[in-house]
């Protein structure tokens, strides 16, 4: 291998160079800006995580799995996974191997960072070695891998269903330019390398192509235009990158370490939120996932459009999209990047100014708490349980059967858990409610707090500070009572389909416990989409602006998903899901507590104890 061009430079590299310098400086500027926007505490935490070996290893692993291999996409659909990882990993390998070539053959050129990209133009092959052939083989191989990905990407644009996607996001103008550049880059590279293959050498792809081209294009004059075209397309791609969805490539590499450092979104538009927004690859997986997409009018209210409008700064649409969402969290669960759609929305809601501010100063949490003091176990039903009284009744009946010394602390008035205020974006008010409720709960003197509403449970987990009190959802609590032998249950042959409530499943990661508990008393059958992909019932308090008709469509769609199981009845563990479903369901909808209570009896020893 020798330098074909003594100066090591040709003007055709300029477009690429310009694009590269532009995108690098944009990214450096962006990184500095985002780091400055982070609150001091978060910034320190982030820096610390970058020197903690454990997180560093996790970062590297996550970046490889998520950005290069697209493991999550493989799990969703193999074709989709192959398409993305072939382009990402193939391209990555082309860059790495390009550098290896330069280091191996022309180490003095490594300072020129365009050299690995245009290596084949600048070199002439003098003798063939095993090393060289292997490298050239690998280069051609990965080029082929990328090209196969590009072909699939083209197919996907016309037949997205093959890739498991019913709907995809409509590309914006910059996304389209970026897309066509990306499609053009690799065929042009193949052409360019093929035209030079008789000089620079090549492998199974470029050498035969070179031979074919030389049969009818007999001179070397075609070489330079294709290298120019390749460089220009690369340059254009780099220039549009910051303004297109392809910004997700650098942004995700920032998102992963930030998330692993435990950062949370604290400002709707700055810092971590900005990274999240730029990390959205606009793939549109969230469109099919979004329960609102059963309404044609709501398709553009999905997270992919939220991130797009946030980048455009379209305030009217940002408000609309933020308010509409049910905050079911499914978009985040299916997103390969994990963009926190609900979190971004809540903080955007929080930007609003309300003229009227509620005043909670007159509420004396401690006094209310003292009034219901006495039990070691406190049961907190929450507002929604009051509205679906069968649940409270079943939970307390189970506690009584098990001989638990408990008090229903909000039976006759209590304080809201604060989650509705929180999801409405009224964070300060929610905080105030939470503090009052903490006082109340501490004053009861209980050591265990049993909660039956997943909406409350999530709030307790995420926003409450009750260090000496164990907060537990009734499902694992009752499981423990059965395991300890305090409750005896009988099995029945009725078949139930279990609906994962958003707040219990995606919100608190309780997927298996409710299933285990239910299968101790009845037969279980799974809905078409379940666990993390469960479909929101449509009744969520999260949405501020969905109409009843729109919600009804969503509830019916969610029910269809459950009917798919052919079960006799529907089980859930959330009062809001139950109230919503029972309006339209053609079969009974019951809470797990109710079902277990029907099948449970007290252990005789408990009775003696009482």
């Amino acid at each position, binding site marked *: 291998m020798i330098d074909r061009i003594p100066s090591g430079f040709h003007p055709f590299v300029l477009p690429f160079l310009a694009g590269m310098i532009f995108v690098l400086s944009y990214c450096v500027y962006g990184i500095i800006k985002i780091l400055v926007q982070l609150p001091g505490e978060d910034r320190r935490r982030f820096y610390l995580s970058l020197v903690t070996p454990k997180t560093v290893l996790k970062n590297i692993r996550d970046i490889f799995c998520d950005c290069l291999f697209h493991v999550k996409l493989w799990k969703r659909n193999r074709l989709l996974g192959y398409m993305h990882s072939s382009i990402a990993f193939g391209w990555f390998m082309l860059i790495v191997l390009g550098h290896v070539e330069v280091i191996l053959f022309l180490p003095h050129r490594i300072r020129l960072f365009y050299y690995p990209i245009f290596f084949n133009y600048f070199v002439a092959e003098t003798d063939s070695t095993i090393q060289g052939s292997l490298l050239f083989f690998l280069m051609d191989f990965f080029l082929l891998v990328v090209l196969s990905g590009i072909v699939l990407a083209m197919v996907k644009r016309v037949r997205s269903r093959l890739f498991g996607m019913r709907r995809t996001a409509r590309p914006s103008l910059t996304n389209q330019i970026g897309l066509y550049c990306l499609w053009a880059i690799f065929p042009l590279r193949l052409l360019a390398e093929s035209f030079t293959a008789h000089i620079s050498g090549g492998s199974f792809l470029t050498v035969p192509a070179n031979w074919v081209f030389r049969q009818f294009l007999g001179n070397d004059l075609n070489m330079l235009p294709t290298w120019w075209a390749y460089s220009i397309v690369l340059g254009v791609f780099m220039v549009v990158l910051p303004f297109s969805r392809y910004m997700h490539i650098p942004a995700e590499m920032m998102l992963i370490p930030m998330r692993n450092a435990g950062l949370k979104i604290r400002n709707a538009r700055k810092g971590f939120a900005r990274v999240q927004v730029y990390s959205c690859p606009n793939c549109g997986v969230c469109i099919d996932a979004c329960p609102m997409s059963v309404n044609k009018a709501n398709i553009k209210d999905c997270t992919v459009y939220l991130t797009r409008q946030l980048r455009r700064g379209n305030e009217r649409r940002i408000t609309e999209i933020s308010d509409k969402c049910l905050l079911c969290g499914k978009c985040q669960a299916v997103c390969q990047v994990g963009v926190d759609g609900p979190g971004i929305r809540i903080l955007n809601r929080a930007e609003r100014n309300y003229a009227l501010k509620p005043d909670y100063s007159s509420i004396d949490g401690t006094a209310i708490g003292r009034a219901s003091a006495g039990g070691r176990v406190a049961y907190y039903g929450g507002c929604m349980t009051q509205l679906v*009284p*069968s649940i409270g*009744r079943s939970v307390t009946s189970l506690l009584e059967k098990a001989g638990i010394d408990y008090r229903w602390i909000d039976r006759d008035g209590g304080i809201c858990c604060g989650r509705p205020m929180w999801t409405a974006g009224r964070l300060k008010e929610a905080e105030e409610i939470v503090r009052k409720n903490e006082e109340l709960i501490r004053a009861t003197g209980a050591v265990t707090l049993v909660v039956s509403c997943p909406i409350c449970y999530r709030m307790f987990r995420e926003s409450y500070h009750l260090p000496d009190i164990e907060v537990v959802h009734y499902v694992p609590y009752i499981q423990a009572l059965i395991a300890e032998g305090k409750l005896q249950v009988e099995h029945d042959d009725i078949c139930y389909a279990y609906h994962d409530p958003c707040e219990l499943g995606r919100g608190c990661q309780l997927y298996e416990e409710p299933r285990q508990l239910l299968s101790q008393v009845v037969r279980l059958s799974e809905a078409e989409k379940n666990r993390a992909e469960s479909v929101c019932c449509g009744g969520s308090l999260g949405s501020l602006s969905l109409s009843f008709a729109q919600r009804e469509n969503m509830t019916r769609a969610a029910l269809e998903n459950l009917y798919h199981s052919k079960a006799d009845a529907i089980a859930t563990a959330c009062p809001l899901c139950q109230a919503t479903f*029972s*309006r339209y369901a053609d079969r009974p909808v019951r809470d797990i507590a109710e079902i277990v209570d029907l099948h449970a009896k007290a252990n005789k020893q408990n009775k003696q104890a009482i």
Partner: protein
Amino acid sequence: MKENVVIIGGGIAGMEAARQLLLLGYTPIIVEKKDHLGGHVARWHKLFPDMAPAGDLVRRLSEAISEANIFLETRITSINRLSNGYVVMLSNGVSIPCRAVLGASGFRLFDASKKEEYGYGVYNHVITNSDLEAWFNGAEDPRIVADPKAVGFVHCVGSRDLKAGNSQCSKVCCMTAVKQAIELKERFPDARIYCFYMDLRLFGKKYEDFYINAQQEYGIQFIRGRVSEVGETAEERLQVKAEDTLSGKPLKVQLDLLVLMSGMVCNPEVAEFARTIRLDVDSDGFLKSLDNVGGINRSNQPGFFYAGACTGTKTVPETLAEARAAALDIHRYLLGK
């Protein structure tokens, strides 16, 4: 030979229409899915505003149609359209060719257990307006205690309620609640009686008199505001939380009985059936009249007529009047005029 007219539904609409059709010289054939005639009214105790026994009305109508063909506990399996009429197939295997069909399939009472916050089917002392009428009629009901100290009526349960899937007013429940409150007060003079309402729609003859009387003579308390939730105390009394929107204050009251004024809703089975013979269904789920002023009795299909609550909520006198009108309309149609 006398000409057949099939009447779907043996409630008061179907019965009154059958009576008129008999007088006009036709053979009405009533198809009723239950084992008795009279529909919802047969379960009712007294009818406002004259407080006449509902049983008398049903009895009079039954006697008047003794010559009609009546199929009880029979359902319609299908209706086929012919060029100038219909063939109605019944579940007992009978098929009836006829030129005119009268739809008098009525309404369904809203299932109060769907408004879970009121605890119907959960708490021991929550009943519906229909349950209360049955009890007035002498049926046993363990939910009604021997000596209630306080009773509440909740208006608009499942009517004018988008969340419950019915945005329409059920029309009769305001007046029914006033009537039932008075009747309960007559039986339990010491009980305090509360009516929780959104607004009172007392449009008919003498309705307003009842309302004034209920307050002045019987001391029934009308509270404007919806009930937010119902709970149960340790003594199994009901604890009702509501807002008095006139005074702007939340209130809590303990009751021994809560009566839910379940509204009239469409029968979804009927709507499904209607689609099979291309009858139009309205946005509220009830059958759609040709027009709502001059053509309430008529459907969009020739030879298919309506009477009573199958096209929307109706009072008893309205239903009877419509049934008579429908009979005349059918007569006119069969004469080809």
